């Protein structure tokens, strides 16, 4: 059975680029351009992995969504890859070993994400 990936991204062009790459690799893709839609998708569908853009309309939207997923008994098992453009803006480099407690996502990736790297990361998390 195909793994189902929820892509949360507010730029519809980037969303389409992600969809092409994921579908090429035989993943089923569900998309959300807002956090509200993402929350609705989580309730209605069985999601295997979330690819989350952290810089939504408000900077904190993506972080808050990741926190709520990881604090939910129902969803905390779903791995999250967080796509960030934050480090260049804030000079804050995420480190999964140091920041994992603060924000327990499985992987951070700096935008723009190389499609090969993205697929490798997803395969690693969905083994």
């Amino acid at each position, binding site marked *: 059975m195909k793994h189902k990936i929820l892509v949360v991204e507010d*730029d519809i*062009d*980037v969303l*389409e*680029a*992600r969809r*092409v*790459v994921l579908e*090429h690799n035989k993943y089923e893709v569900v998309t959300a351009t807002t956090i509200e839609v993402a929350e609705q998708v989580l309730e209605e569908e069985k999601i295997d992995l979330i690819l989350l853009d952290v*810089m939504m*309309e408000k900077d904190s939207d993506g972080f808050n969504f990741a926190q709520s997923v990881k604090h939910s008994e129902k969803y905390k098992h779903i791995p999250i890859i967080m796509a960030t*453009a934050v480090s*260049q*803006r804030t000079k804050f480099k995420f480190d999964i070993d140091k920041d994992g407690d603060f924000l327990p996502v499985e992987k951070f990736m700096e*935008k*723009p*994400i*190389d*499609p*090969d790297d993205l697929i490798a990361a997803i395969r690693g998390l969905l083994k």
Partner: protein
Amino acid sequence: MNKTKSTKDDERVLAKMAHDIKAPLSAIVSILGVIQKGYVNDIDKVKELVSRASQKAVTLISMVDDILDYTLLANKSMMRREKIHLFDVFLDSISTMKPYADRRNITFAYSQELCKEKYVNGNYTFLLRAINNIIMNAIKYNKENGNITIDCQENTKKNTITITIKDTGIGVPEEDLDKIFHVFERGKYARKNIDGSLGLGLSLVKQIVEDHYGDINLTSTVGVGTAVALTLPLLKEKTKNKEG
């Protein structure tokens, strides 16, 4: 050493600019990367993705144009002034903006005599830019099938002309009216960056109008529309063709 307010403001503007420019650039790299790495073979899909990347590049050019204009305006000595027929500025602006309005089925209403034989001492490119920016906002934040009304009223006592551009759009909440002319500010209902612009539009307009010794006034009702009124001093007959 404490940073001055203007240094902090400059840093904030630069950081915002860098972030806003990075977003479409990052999208272009993501989209082209998909094609470059061979994730799509269907030629129609390739064309669609290239078209998406191309649109992002157009957005970037528009952002850079805004920055260039803003920089140019900072140096007022570079602004060459001449006798400008406001009628020509409006015809030029409306013909430029009409295709954008047509896409949203928005119609213009104005008199054929709009600002005819009304002259100001100014810079054609910048005045056109100001009018274009106001009309573009009236298109972007209008409702589908909405209207844009343009009107010119002369005040013979003061020898000024007031140009009012009124839309039937989403409006600006009262608490945002003061902020809307600041760099990078958008109204609450316009906060979603629908066109990828930098939010320099109205701050540029204000600066252009002030550099033409004029005033700008914005009145708005949420859900009803916004009216932007520009008042400019008319060119006095005896000072026609004056260079400033």
